């Protein structure tokens, strides 16, 4: 008995050493409220890396890297492509996608291409060229890649998709933080911030935090009124217009 306990104690550091590091992530805001002055949000994503045995790896060991992926609620979309027909640009071909992230940002401590191989990037959807867009219709591969790059380009310019290599700062190999900007044009819903710990070309740990973006106060009232009691909302819009127009006329007649 005594011997067994002794062996276990001796093995304990080794057992712990065999386990992987653990991530403890957090975000500056779990809930983002959209109010009248909303022009987008600046998220601070931070956390700590817990190494087995509490010992951070030394400078001669392979460096630890962090990759953070923030995704918006996925949408089912119809993507249309304009073509020049008889001198004017009209929507011609279209493609349907079942689930496309409405927002996608990837931040990392070094460019992701330097961290992992293409296969791993595809598995974890690291990078805009590795997004799994799930086209619903059977498209030819070249058409598919044309549409996919068109969609990524469109959303990139709207600030909805972006890559931020070197945006994650790691302090003393233990604490990390990154800033991710979410533009005002995002849909409401549940966003996820996934943090990955990468070392030696392998993903060793992952953790997820949810962020809820929702309209609040007057903005929520207007959006839900327009959606649920649309007739009353329409009448209110008309009444408001009439009132504003009439009172402006009445005020000006006094001058």
């Amino acid at each position, binding site marked *: 008995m005594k011997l067994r306990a002794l062996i276990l104690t001796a093995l304990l550091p080794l057992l712990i050493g065999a386990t992987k590091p653990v991530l403890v992530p957090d975000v500056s805001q779990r809930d983002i409220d959209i109010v009248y002055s909303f022009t987008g949000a600046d998220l601070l994503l931070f956390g700590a890396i817990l190494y087995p045995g509490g010992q951070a790896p030394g400078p001669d060991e392979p460096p630890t890297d962090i990759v953070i992926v923030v995704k918006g609620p996925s949408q089912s979309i*119809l993507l249309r492509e304009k073509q020049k027909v008889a001198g004017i640009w009209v929507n011609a071909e279209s493609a349907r996608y079942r689930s496309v992230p409405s927002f996608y940002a990837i931040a990392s401590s070094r460019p992701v291409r330097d961290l992992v191989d293409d296969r791993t990037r595809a598995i974890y959807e690291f990078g805009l060229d590795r997004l799994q867009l799930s086209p619903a219709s059977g498209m030819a591969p070249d058409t598919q890649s044309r*549409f996919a790059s068109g969609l990524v380009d469109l959303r990139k310019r709207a600030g909805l998709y972006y890559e931020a290599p070197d945006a994650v700062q790691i302090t003393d190999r233990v604490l990390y933080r990154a800033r991710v900007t979410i533009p005002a044009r995002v849909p409401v819903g549940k966003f996820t911030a996934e943090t990955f710990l990468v070392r030696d070309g392998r993903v060793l740990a992952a953790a997820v935090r949810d962020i809820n973006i929702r309209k609040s106060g007057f903005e929520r009232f207007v959006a839900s009124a327009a959606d649920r009691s649309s007739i009353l909302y329409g009448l209110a819009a008309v009444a408001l217009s009439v009132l504003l127009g009439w009172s402006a006329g009445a005020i000006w007649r006094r001058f």
Partner: protein
Amino acid sequence: MDIYLPIANLSVNALVIILLGGGVGLLSGMFGIGGGFLTTPLLIVYGIPPTVAAASSASQVTGSSVSGVSAHFRRGGVDVKMGAMMVTGGIFGSLFGAVLFSILQKSGQIDTVIAILYVVLLGSIGGLMFIESIGAIRKARSGTASRARKRRHHPLIASLPFRTRFYASGLYISPLAPMLLGFCIGILTTLLGIGGGFILIPAMLYLLGMHTRVVVGTSLFQTLFVTASATLVHATTTKSVDIVLATLLLLGSATGAQIGARFAQKVTPEYLRLALAVIVLLVGLRMALGLGWRPDEIYTVDLP
């Protein structure tokens, strides 16, 4: 000052929108038009989704026509019977427009159709106005008094049944004529977010042959009710009336319209019409070029 639009789902500079409304209001007060044909394209250029732009601009036109209608009522410049006929047709037109809107939206051609309609309407009406006002200015300069055109309605309209008397307009025609006219304008109101005054007024003058005295007031009367109906139609079908956007636009346009109306009294009407024709033609030209130029966005996303 940035303000978030709860329906358009984006944030805009409130001052820019108010100034945009003010500029359109200035022109609408000067020329006696609703100005929807300027608001919708300008909003689209600013980055507002086309559907929200058309829907919210319709509700803005409602507001900006109110004070005009009340002013014309006091002056006795509204043929209520004629107006009621046009509004009846217009309400059906705005409903039919909504059906067309959803068919076109499904097929993905709504933006192209809106743009082509704008080009055709603005081009033809602007061209006609341009020629007419140049002629009027020439006559005024050479000093020959322009012979008053004999007021007559179009022979096709005389052939319609159920004729009735419209005293204020000085007409004895079938109520179907103003109803049909209202119906066509109603379709355009839902599709384009315009009041349609710049089509309605020439049609009332040259097709129906109404008294000039009641033309503007009756046209505004129709605009008020049909844009209100189009706002309701949009609110229930496309759900894209942005009350915040419409309010911002109205704050600007209600003020601008009053200033414009004061300014208009100091300018010769022929030159005013020529200026309006030039503006209409310029907007039409810009839309035409937009159709042929390679657009900034080749791809667009639809959320079904």
